[in-house]
């Protein structure tokens, strides 16, 4: 249970981190909070020759609240995001999702960017990124590029980040509709564990209760977290009720191809996805309607 040997470099800046990545390529891994990477090294599932530590780069921990987006440094700690009232007012799903992520000790160290690049298909933050269409800014020595979440996640524990790239910043879209509500819900064996299945939704409504904008998705039931933009669009212009929420949720669940494991069969995961999407849609809708 001890990590294999490696060499360590504490990067003083993102430029230095990218320089080190360009030198060492595949042999190097970035370490942020380490809450997933260190266990994987302890289990010898990963044996990087180099760890490049980005924890001391202050620029990667800045959170900028802009009109249409929150720009968040990749190394922002999960606990910082949970506590930030102004951020919660703009992107409430982050705090709602983080309530299900790990425990105090892991959230104090774990980072938002680290959870995204780890890309566990049942993790909470990748699902939020997927349904909000977050944009992920990647940096390499040779330049920068930005990927939408849908192009970022490639499979279980896989992303389209190149070996010489470091996630620098996440852009979380802010919905400016006044009556916006969101919800995150999941089933896990114990609170703080990875979800057996999870669902999240965000809905904006007009003063008459008609949906004007809808997004929702499911985690833990496919190779990556999945958003359902066409089904979400079908709810626009409608008032939500339990029957409509359930019908859309059933259609989403039927489209999933979950795995079975020791915790849940395929059929049970699909069933959970339907139940959880129904709940998330209703809770998000009720929250949107209750905005004065």
């Amino acid at each position: 249970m001890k990590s294999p040997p490696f060499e360590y470099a504490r990067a003083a800046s993102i430029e230095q981190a990218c320089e080190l990545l360009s030198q060492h390529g595949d042999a190097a891994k970035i370490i942020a909070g380490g809450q997933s990477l260190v266990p994987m090294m302890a289990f010898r599932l990963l044996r990087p020759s180099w760890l490049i530590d980005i924890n001391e780069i202050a620029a990667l921990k800045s959170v900028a609240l802009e009109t249409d987006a929150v720009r968040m440094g990749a190394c922002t700690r999960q606990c910082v995001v949970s506590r930030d009232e102004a951020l919660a007012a703009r992107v409430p799903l982050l705090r709602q999702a983080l309530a299900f992520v790990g425990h105090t000790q892991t959230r104090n160290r774990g980072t938002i960017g680290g959870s995204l690049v780890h890309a566990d298909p049942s993790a909470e933050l990748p699902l939020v990124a997927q349904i909000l269409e977050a944009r992920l800014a990647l940096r390499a020595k040779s330049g920068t590029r930005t990927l939408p979440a849908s192009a970022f996640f490639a499979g279980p524990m896989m992303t389209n980040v190149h070996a010489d790239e470091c996630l620098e910043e996440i852009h979380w879209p802010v919905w400016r509709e006044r009556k916006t509500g969101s919800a995150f819900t999941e089933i896990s064996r114990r609170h703080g564990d990875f979800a057996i299945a999870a669902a999240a939704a965000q809905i904006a409504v007009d003063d008459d209760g008609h949906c004007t904008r809808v997004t929702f998705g499911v985690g833990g039931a496919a190779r990556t977290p999945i958003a359902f933009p066409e089904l979400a669009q079908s709810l626009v212009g409608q008032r939500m009720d339990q029957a409509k929420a359930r019908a859309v949720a059933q259609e989403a669940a039927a489209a999933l191809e979950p795995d079975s494991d020791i915790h849940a069969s395929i059929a049970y995961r699909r069933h959970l996805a339907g139940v959880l999407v129904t709940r998330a849609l209703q809770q998000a809708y009720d929250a949107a309607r209750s905005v004065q």
Partner: protein
Amino acid sequence: MSEALYSIVVDINGTRHVSHVTARTSLVDWLREHLHLTGTHIGCEHGICGACSVMLDGEPVRSCLMYAVQADGHRITTVEGLQRPDGSLSVLQDSFCETHALQCGYCTPGMLIAAQALLDATPRPTEAEIRDAIGGNLCRCTGYQQIVDAIALAARRMAEGAT
């Protein structure tokens, strides 16, 4: 293969420690094997059990999920740092004795760190907040109830100004 050594300076319980460590030395191994601060326990070594909890710059973290080299320049509080200056038990530690909040004692240092961090931030916690604060710490003896009682008792005693 000989591994490179990295020079680190870490404040542990108010004392500055200078050391040389391999990169792969976990913070908890360094505390126990190099500094002989064996109050912090090693349980699962992969971030599940919480027995190795310490405070990093005042916030509880798992010392098995950090390398000692990463603590360079930071401040660590271990369970040894919770005692009063004269070496007697803190209000929280005494409350653990009072309510029989430990049996085998393996989880106790992690529980104490998690609970102290809670009380530092939230002096009058609700029962739900107490249970959430120790949610990342496994205990196989007590069933948790006496631990929750101990933390609630400590909060009451501190509020009453008991020293």
